[in-house]
């Protein structure tokens, strides 16, 4: 993950680096870290932490996809 994050940091500087599909990559560390830490603060047992992290991670992805779909839909009317 550290290596992935270091790549992400040096993806490029300037607006072009944030304008393509690459910007979706910035979601991955946020979702992974959020779900792991949230799962970790709910349970002590690693098996349960893993299950909770997967559940929260999926929810976050679904929620983000819904927000993206709504934003995309609205952009057609503008």
């Amino acid at each position: 993950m550290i290596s992935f994050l270091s790549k992400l940091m040096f993806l490029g500087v300037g607006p072009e680096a944030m304008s393509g599909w690459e910007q979706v990559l910035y979601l991955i560390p946020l979702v992974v870290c959020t779900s792991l830490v949230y799962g970790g603060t709910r349970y002590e047992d690693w098996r349960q932490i893993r299950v909770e992290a997967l559940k929260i991670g999926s929810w976050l992805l679904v929620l983000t996809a819904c927000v993206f779909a709504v934003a995309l839909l609205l952009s057609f009317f503008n």
Partner: protein
Amino acid sequence: MASEEQYEFDLDLKNRGIAALLTWLVPGVGHLYQGRISKGIMIFVCISALFITGLQMSGGKSVYCSFRKSDFRWQFIGQFFVGSAAIPAVVQNRVVRKQEADPQRAIRPLFGGKFAPPNEFLGEREQWHLDYHAYFQMGTLYTFVAGLLNMFAIFDAACGPMAYGNENSINGEEKSGEEVAW
């Protein structure tokens, strides 16, 4: 819900105040102090990686404390929960504002300007946005989320996990959602 006695019997949280303070200062260190090594390492890696990545993306500019009307940095409320960054930011804010109050004095923030609020007279904030583009916002988001996650970690260090132990499974058999108590 598990009682206080159960917590103390099953999980030794040691001195809760010290554990919470340590976690606020450096994410996961309070858990290491409590002997929850693997969890402490996981929290440290996740939160530090997010925070440092965010800081790096924005050239170290996205974490600063400022509560002026013209530059109300509400994101600092989230970033504040990573204490090792919040303390220098608060100190820098005080130093810079004190220097700004004296027009004869040049504004010289400490530590080479790290965690210092932008100089309004030089239009530094606008310059940061020009220099870092969307990375400034992304860096702010990363550090903000890292701070909020550390708030959960502080709560976990002080009070233990929200749903402790193996409550939702007995001998490997999962209970239904209604049966699971908080």
